């Protein structure tokens, strides 16, 4: 298996749609279109250049058709892989593959959600699993809570350590004008918040917001002709370990171990080369699991690793600098925003939250209930 070619493609445009609580009546396709327009403006490309369209959302069954119709496009290449929040990291790999094969030259990857406006129940159809649903797990929180219970049992991870993930995310969010949360948060504030599914309080859980956006992928060659600094795709990896939490092979080891390994190999890089991480923090345990599985600390040491502000703005490792799904924005499938922030960091566009000398970024997507993992390693021109 030969695989994708390191740095054959780059992300050249990124943008959020309106976020938070969007205007009444805006559809998920409206939000995708906002994202496409803004991301194209960011890249310097035009709608007529687009010949690849990728989408994922829970609120439109045939969303790629809807977006193509809306944009007036009949592109030679489309994709709508949907694996929860990690969908967009898969789309990057699929777009890169299509570009390498000459099947398209400029791909947009778009997302939209109005789950806050319409309510979570309206935003995604409840699926009944006859082997799990009778026990009324509060999904997805309870699935992640079960994984957290194992991590606490096996490694002594504490609720305070998990709370440190939420506090770091909030500190970063306070530096991001686009973030939903505007007030400081303490460890005690996390622990004393309303309990959702033990050990998680509502502050261990991602936000419920509206939002969307788009990213533009093109060939490395074309990327170099554009104004903004390209974010080259250096590595991609994916892993599917299960669908339901009762079938997860090991509740303390995620597919990020495999997806990261594949991505590092393709990128010819390792964890010590990475300057900034965008990790899918649907719940506080996620950040701990992914730091371990992506090789930033040993298995079981993630709790101690994140304590004491290490991953906050004053810490030694920059993680989720936009404030993450915990404090910036979480419309249900957050993976697109990981890519947006990683690209902005590589370009040096992040203002107060900018990480110095940022050459290599990881965007790590998670989907389902730790089910699907996808790692994208991006780098600026210094890495190519």
């Amino acid at each position: 298996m030969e695989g994708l070619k390191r740095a054959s493609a780059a992300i050249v445009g990124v943008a959020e749609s309106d976020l938070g609580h969007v205007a009444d009546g805006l559809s998920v396709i409206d939000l995708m279109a906002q994202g496409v327009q803004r991301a194209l403006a960011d890249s310097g490309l035009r709608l007529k250049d687009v010949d690849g369209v990728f989408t994922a959302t829970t609120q439109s069954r045939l969303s790629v058709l809807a977006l193509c119709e809306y944009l007036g496009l009949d592109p030679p290449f489309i994709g709508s892989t949907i694996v929860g929040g990690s969908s967009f990291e898969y789309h990057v790999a699929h777009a890169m593959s299509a570009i390498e094969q000459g099947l398209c030259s400029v791909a947009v990857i778009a997302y939209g959600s109005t789950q806050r406006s319409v309510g979570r129940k309206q935003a995604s159809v409840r699926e009944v699993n006859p082997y799990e649903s009778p026990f009324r797990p509060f999904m997805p929180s309870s699935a992640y809570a079960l994984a957290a219970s194992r991590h606490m049992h096996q490694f002594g991870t504490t609720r305070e350590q998990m709370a440190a993930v939420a506090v770091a995310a909030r500190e970063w969010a306070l530096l991001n004008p686009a973030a939903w949360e505007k007030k400081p948060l303490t460890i005690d504030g996390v622990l004393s918040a309303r309990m959702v599914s033990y050990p998680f309080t509502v502050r261990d859980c991602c936000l419920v917001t509206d939002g969307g956006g788009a990213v533009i992928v093109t060939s490395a060659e074309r990327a170099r002709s554009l104004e903004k600094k390209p974010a080259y795709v250096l590595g991609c990896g994916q892993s599917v370990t299960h669908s339901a939490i009762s079938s997860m092979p090991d509740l303390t080891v995620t597919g990020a171990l495999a997806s990261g390994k594949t991505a590092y190999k393709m990128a010819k890089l390792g964890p010590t080369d990475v300057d900034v991480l965008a990790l899918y923090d649907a719940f506080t345990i996620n950040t701990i699991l992914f730091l371990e599985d992506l090789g930033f600390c040993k298995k079981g040491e993630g709790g101690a690793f994140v304590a004491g502000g290490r991953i906050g703005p004053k810490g030694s490792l920059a993680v989720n600098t936009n404030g993450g799904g915990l404090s910036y924005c979480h419309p249900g499938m957050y993976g697109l925003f990981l890519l947006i922030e990683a690209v902005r960091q590589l370009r040096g566009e992040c203002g107060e939250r900018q990480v110095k000398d940022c050459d290599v970024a990881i965007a790590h997507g998670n989907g389902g209930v730790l089910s699907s993992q996808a790692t994208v390693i991006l780098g600026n021109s210094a890495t190519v």
Partner: protein
Amino acid sequence: MPAGEQSPLNTYLAHLEKGELAYQFSPDAGKAVFYPRVLCPFTGSSKLEWRISKGLGTVHATTVVHPAEGAAYNVALIDCDEGFRLMSRVEDIAPDKVRIGQRVRFRVHRPGGEEPPCPVFVPAEAA
């Protein structure tokens, strides 16, 4: 009558109706298979035997759900001694007293009405 075999789910539920916790066993893989399927995920073969669990297991993971309304309740993953894991809950003790590693014993829960029976567990010493 519909053509073909009974669904794995309905076979499983028919056992539960009789008070039995059924699972599948793959003789070629030498492993238990759960949830029930039409093929073995280890071999790809449809050669799967139905077996009845002795109903003893260990709590593998546990959480307490705090719903917006109503009492908190337990949700757990149980490792049965025959080598399969399932989602369930531990009853007869407070939901926050359920411990990982705790030994538990199966009993059938019959919600009544349209709801099919489901397997729940109680502390093994109390059963």
